[in-house]
Every structure is written in C-alpha cells, then in structure tokens.
C-alpha cells in the first residue's frame, strides 16, 4: 500500500456571513418557518431580477486577498442551467468564465510538522439552493426556499494535498482565515463550510494523475479523514485487482464508513453556462481593493508571535485565546483597559470557557464587555472582592454584562476594609472557639484554617482571607 500516493484537491463551499441574501434583501438567518425568508427574487418568480449584494463581493475579495489570489478586476456572473426543485429558477447564478479570484495559495503546517503551500485555482461567488424535505408520511417532497439565495463562495484548490492530515491542515487554515475576516463562521457541522474531496491514487514517482472521484457529504474533520482513508483503500484495491477507477461522484456514509456512487461522468449534465444578462459585470476599483486591504485584520499567526513577545504568555494560553478572533479581541481590549495580560488570560481560559461549555455556547456568543472584565480584575487586584465573590460577579457579568463595580456595591459584596470591625469579629471568633485556639497553640497549624473560615462566615465573605490570617496570627 505504501507504494501508492494519494492526490487530493478540495472544493470548499463557504456560506458568507451577510445579513441579507446575495441577490435580494431577504434575511439569511438560519432556521425560521419554511418559506418565510423569501421573496419573488429568491423563489425565482417570473419577472423578478437579481441585484448583487455588495457585501458578498467585499467578503469574496477579502478572502481572495488573504489567500494570495489575483483579484479579477472585471468579473461576471454566469448561469448554470439544470432542473431540480430546490433550484427555483432551474438555473444557479454562479461564476464560470470570470471568477472573482484566481491563482492563490495558502501555507499550511500539519500536526506532524509538514509545511507546504496549497495552491488555490479559483474562488467564485454563487447562490445556495433551497432545501428539499422528503415527507414519508405524506409521500411527497416539500421545498423550503429560506436557504435559496444565501451567498456562497466556492474555493477550488489545486490537487496539492497528499494526506488527510494535509487536508485537515488546509481546511483549518481556511477556517481560521475566513473566520478572522468575519466572512463566515465556517462550521462544518452546520453546513456553513462544506468540503467536496477530489481524490485519486498513483504509484509513488509517477507524473500522471490517476482517475479521480469526487466525494460529497463530509460534515466533520473526522468524516473527512475517514472518507479519505476509505476512498484511498477502495481505489488501490481496484487497481491491484486489475480493475479501473471510474470517474464519478460518490456520497460518503459516515455511519457505515463507506461511499457509494451517485453519478458517473457519463451522466454528467451539460450545464449550458452563459453570462447572466440580468447582472451587469462587476468592476473592482483600486479604491475598493485598498479599503478591503486596510480592513484586513491581524491573522492568527501574527498574533501568536506578538502575544509571546508582547505579553509573555505561555503557548497554551496563546493558542487558546487566538483560536477565535472574538476571544482574541476581548483579550486585547481588556488588556488595553489596563488589566494584567496573564490575569485576563486566566479569566478567559478558565471561567469563560467553563461557562461557555456549561451553556453550550461559542466564543462568538460572549457578550460581556472588555471594560467590565478589566474592572472586575481591578476589584480583585485591589482586594475589594475575594476570588469566590469575583466568580459570582463574573457569572452575572457573563449573562448580563453587568458593571462589576455597581454589582458589588448593590449586593454589598465589598470586602470590609474597616480593620477595627474585623479585629472585633476575630476576637469574638477566638472567644467562641477555645478548642481550636488550644489546638493551634498545641501545634495544630490546620486549626487556624477553621478560625479563618469562621471569621469569613461571620463577615459574610466580605473580607480578604489574607488579612484575616494575618490578624488571627497576631491576636493568637
């Protein structure tokens, strides 16, 4: 088996994070009752006309620039004609002849350390289709056009990948780049990022490519890895047993861990592509390119280097915080409010992550403001609240983005800084617990912990345990 090399190219569809659809003003929001996010345009009604959403163009260009593509300065939309009920016009508006981006590449680094560039053949803009629902009970098929007209970009790579590991590194790189740009959330499970895998095998050292197959329905990195392994093995078995690989589209069934043929090349349709006369050609101006370039964020690689240099954070912290741009933004803004970097990182890595997980949320969903996190950190630094109280405040802040200073005030959670009152309380605790005092004097160091606890309880937690400890030792 090791005499063979796997050759893989990817077609990746990414759903863009625009508020409205690519050619009409309907909402792109996921969910909603069937056919409620629709209008004459995205249901292909007669006489309706498409008008390009400029944000789609800007996102596509931003992705193209970030993946080192040439931007097509005069690009057009084409119609891809095929009959299917999820496609209301029976043609899809896409780009064939003059796609918006061409000739790019991304640099990838795999888990095992392989570094290489994967070339991008093109990126084009197109509209998504509706969703077909087969109702067995009614014995009928129903169509929901809410997704019809949701903007997509299709990123077509060259056949430059040689393993599942490289494929995953490439997809990770795309996901990170595109989500940093804010162009998409790139979730495979939810379908906002979809990958079709073109795969062939050949003997090591051969120059010609083997016959390739295209695999669809891959909705997790694990499914992709399994599908690549499965298809590689299937093709090698065919060749070894003297048979030929047939050029075809195959559907991966991740439960059964095998693929089956959907349609062969012979059944391939003639899509009769031609320029869509309803849309005017798009001219990309220098100003537009400059504006998009100027908006380009600092990407993860640069942040990783900078965080180590500027904040001296451990690698583990940096990798976690930069995993998501929103998280990194919160980190940076909190630090710029004056909070110590490591403290911020701790709050993000421990409490924030815990609450996200418990509430089944993503870092995107974080609502508390960096200024509030900074002031909470300040309260703990000033020992105005102890760590238990701080966690309580943070929980509320996570939910409601409350101002921690006000919260502490309103709930009377501030540590008692009145040493006189504290001394009085401690004296009372000492008087009430002679046994523990005796134990302490007999060398049982642990006994002081009990006395601290009693004092904290008497003070309703509003004191700093360090001070309690200090005063206790002094009075004992």
């Amino acid at each position, binding site marked *: 088996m090791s005499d063979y090399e796997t050759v893989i190219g990817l077609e990746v569809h990414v759903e863009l994070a625009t508020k409205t659809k690519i050619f009409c003003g309907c909402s792109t929001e996921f969910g909603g009752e069937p056919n409620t996010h629709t209008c*004459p345009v995205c*249901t*292909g*009604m*007669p*006489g*309706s*006309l*498409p*008008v*390009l959403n400029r944000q789609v163009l800007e996102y596509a260009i931003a992705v193209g620039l970030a993946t080192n593509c040439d931007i097509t300065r005069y690009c057009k939309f084409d*119609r891809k*004609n095929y*009959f299917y*009920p999820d496609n*209301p*016009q*029976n*043609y899809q508006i896409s780009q064939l002849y003059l796609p918006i981006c061409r000739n790019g590449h991304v640099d990838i680094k795999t888990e095992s350390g392989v570094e290489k560039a994967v070339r991008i053949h093109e990126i084009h803009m197109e509209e998504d289709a509706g969703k077909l629902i087969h109702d067995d009970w009614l014995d009928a098929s129903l*169509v929901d056009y809410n997704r019809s007209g949701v903007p997509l970009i299709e990123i077509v790579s060259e056949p430059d990948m040689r393993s599942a590991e490289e494929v995953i590194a490439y997809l990770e790189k795309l996901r990170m780049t595109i989500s940093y740009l804010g162009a998409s959330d790139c979730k495979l499970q939810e379908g906002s990022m979809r990958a079709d895998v073109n795969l062939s095998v050949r003997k090591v050292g051969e120059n010609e490519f083997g016959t390739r197959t295209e695999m669809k329905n891959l909705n997790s990195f694990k499914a992709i890895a399994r599908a690549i392994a499965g298809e590689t093995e299937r093709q090698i078995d065919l060749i070894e047993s003297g048979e030929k690989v047939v050029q075809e589209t195959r559907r991966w069934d991740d439960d059964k861990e095998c693929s089956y043929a959907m349609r062969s090349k012979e059944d391939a349709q*003639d899509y*009769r*592509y*031609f320029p869509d*006369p*309803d*849309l*005017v050609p798009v001219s990309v101006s220098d100003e537009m390119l400059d504006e998009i370039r100027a908006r380009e964020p600092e990407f993860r690689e640069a942040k990783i280097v900078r965080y180590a240099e500027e904040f001296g954070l451990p690698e583990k912290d940096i990798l976690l915080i930069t995993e998501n741009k929103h998280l990194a933004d919160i980190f940076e803004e909190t630090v710029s409010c004056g909070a110590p970097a490591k403290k911020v990182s701790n709050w993000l890595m421990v409490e924030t992550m815990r609450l996200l997980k418990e509430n089944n949320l993503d870092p995107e969903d974080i609502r508390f403001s960096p200024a509030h996190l900074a002031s909470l950190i300040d309260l703990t630094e000033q020992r105005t609240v102890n760590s238990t109280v701080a966690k309580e405040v943070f929980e509320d802040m996570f939910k409601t983005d409350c101002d921690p200073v006000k919260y502490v005030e309103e709930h009377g959670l501030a540590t008692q800084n009145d040493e006189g009152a504290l001394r009085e309380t401690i004296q009372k605790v000492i008087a009430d617990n002679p046994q523990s005092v005796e134990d302490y004097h007999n060398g049982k160091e642990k006994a002081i912990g009990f006395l601290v606890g009693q004092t904290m309880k008497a003070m309703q937690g509003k004191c700093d345990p360090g001070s309690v400890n200090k005063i206790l030792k002094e009075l004992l």
Partner: protein
Amino acid sequence: MSYITELDALSLGRAIASGEIRTTEATEEYLKSIEEQDGTYNCYVTVDGDRAMEAAKEIQARIDKGELSDSPLAGVPVAIKDNMCTEGLLTTCSSRILYNFVPTYESTAVRKLRNAGAVILGKTNMDEFAMGSTTETSYFGPTRNPADPEHVPGGSSGGSAAAVAAGECAYALGSDTGGSIRQPASYCGVVGIKPTYGTVSRYGLIAYGSSLDQIGPLTRNVSDAAAVLTAISGHDDKDSTSVDMPAKDYTQALKKDVKDIKIGIPKDYFGEGLDHEVAASVRAAADVLKAAGATVEEFDLSLVNYAIPAYYTIAAAEASSNLERFDGIKYGYRTEDFAGLHNMYKKSRSEGFGAEVKRRIMLGSFVLSSGYYDAYYLKALKVKALIKKAFDDAFAKYDIILGPVAPTTAPKLGESLSDPIKMYLGDIYTISVNLAGLPGISVPCGTSTDGLPIGVQLLADCFNEEKLLRTAFTYEQTK
C-alpha cells in the same frame, strides 16, 4: 368610437383634470368600447372591469382633493401587455403554462403608472412569451387588426397596439425585444417607442431575451408617447441593468424644429424584399423632414444581414434559460398524470408551451450546449458588438437614422406561422436596434392601397430619446 375614446391620452388627461370628464365616466366608456369590440379584435386576455371602476373612483376622489395635479395621465385608462406582472391580476404571457398565474408583486413600470393615477383596464394579448411577430402564437387565440380584421396586428405586442388603434384603451404598454412594439405600432397605425436599453426598469417584466427586452409606450400620437415614457422611465434599484441617471421629462423635447438634425437613410434598408408601397411612404416621410429643414443623406450601414442570425441566437439562448423556471412545480400549469419528477417536468412543459416557444427553447439550448457555445453563442455576441460599432459610426455622422419598420404591411392571419423563417426575416429592420440597445420609434406615415397602415422608423443614439421625439413630433405635425 365615442367622443371620449377618440381623445388621445393627454387630451383626456386634461379633460379629466379640468373636471370636464370624470375618470369613472372615461373608464366606463372604455369598458363599453371593449365589450362592444373585443369579441372581434381579441385585444385583451383579461379585462379587469370591476377593479378598474374601483380605481377610477379612488383616483377621481384624489383629483377632486387636488392631488395628482402634476400627473398629465391621472385618470386615463391604460392597457398592459400580459407579460408585465400586475399584483393580484392574472398575468399569463399568453401561455397555457401561466394560465392561472396571479403575481403577488407589481412590475416597476406598472407601479409607476399606478402612482401617476392610471386606471388599468386589463391585460393585452401577445405572442406567447413575446415570441412571434403576429400575435398568432397566443394560447388565447390571435388578435385581429382593427384596420382590417382579416389581417394580423403584428406582434408580439399586438394586443396593445390593436387596443390603442381600436379605442379599447387610451394608451398601452408593450415590450420590445426585436421589434415587438414598433412593428405592431406600424401595422396598426399607432405610435410605439422602444426606449434605450436600461431606460425603463425590467423588474416584473417576464423575460424573453433579458439583454434585449425593453418596455415602452403604444399611443395615439408622439406627445402621448413622450408623456408615457416620462411616467415609466427612471432608475430602479431592483433592476441592475436599469441606468442610473436623473429623471427626464421627455415632453420638453416636443418642439417643431429639425433644422439642426442630420438624418441618415441606410441604403441597405431599401433592397430586395421591401414592399414598394412601404418604400415610397417611408421616402415621402424623409422628404417631409427635409422640407422642414433637416439634412437628409443616404449611407451604407453594413452588417444588416447578420442581425437576424445573431438576434435569434442570443434571444433564443437567453429565452431557453429564462423559461426554465416554468416547470409546473411552484405555479402555473402542471400535467395531470406523470411518473416521477422528470416525467412531470417533460409533460408539463410539453403541454404548457406552444410550438414557437418550444422551437426557440430548443434552438437556445442547442447554441449554449457544450461544443457549440463558441461557434454560435459567442460568435453571435461578437456580431452584436460589430453591429453596435456600425451604429456608433453612423451616429458619429447622423443624429437620426430613418427607415422602414417592416418590409410589408400587416399580413393576413395564418400566412406567417407556416413559414417561421419568413416571419423571422420580417424583423430585419427592427432587431439590430435591440442588439445595439438603441432607442427607436415607429410613427404612422401612410396607408397602402388596400387600406393597411404603414409606419416609418426613426432611430437615435443611446439616451437620445429627446432628439428622436423632437424629430418624430416635427414629422407628425408637418406631414
């Protein structure tokens, strides 16, 4: 015709504005005229009498309150070609496949007319999906020419042109993809304008050849045409091909003055196939303009014979794709018995479309198919560019090009459909205008010895509708 239905649109509008005639009265008169005559002419697919009367009352109430005073067409009854979507009103494209289609939205041109206080009488007959030159390919039967009911009214906006000529509406909207406004205007003896591509929004116009289609007016005279064009033109955010330019009042161009106008007559337009009576009438029209002070010259336009094949390639290609949405799934005609999805598509479309539409879908699918795209479709686009260049060269020398609209007067019913190639060749003088995106107008210029109307066609460079209207107006007032 009654006194009211004899008035042109602007005169009726003035009479309504002055209170001399009430909108309801005018609407009633037109509905009566339709009832009396449409059994003969079949101009309408749908007459929307009840709602027209309701609209007339509302508009009259607004006029009584002093509203709509800036709209010269307020209260004037209009007919709309049945390929423009009208909210809540059946829109069929004269096809079985849309026999029950009621849009939930309004085409921009119709919305603009409603805003201007128009009363919509109904939807006019046409060649199915605007494919044809005689209004005989309609699923709802042919329209007859009011000048002689044995003859066709032309097409595809034949219902609109005949309705204007017969006094079944004060004016009408048509659409022109290869001559579909100008040719029926010529055959019926009315005025028709095909505006520069991008002047009138196509939103809500059920597409035939998207890169060629334009909506325009069919009217009793040039002044009405200018007023209607003013009302329906202007940029529309819903149509990417609609040109973003300031709104224009085309009636400002209605001046009797052509002293600065240089007119070119393409020699190529007067060759074989042109009826001698038509040729004589058109030349006489040129003489009228010359006498009025215009410079008139003959010149070689070239490429005239390439326009027809280029047009039928491009229009059919676009149509084959535009008409894919009519599949019997979401609306319109669906076959009764079918076995599976593809059989349903095939049967619904086979039974829903007529012969001419099927012919063009097949032709269009062929020229776009893999292996033929370059040889046919791409080549046609190149020819289109060359034709545009030939016109650019001509308009460097002339303000207006003058010629015939069609080679003959209106043929008899049944003569054309048996020979589609002959029918296609009849479009020779009109289609290059659509390929080049130019504005064109057809103005009545005579009558043949057998009593059929003849039109003269004037063309101008893109967005020079004012020159076109001024020349047409001068001719109309002088002849």
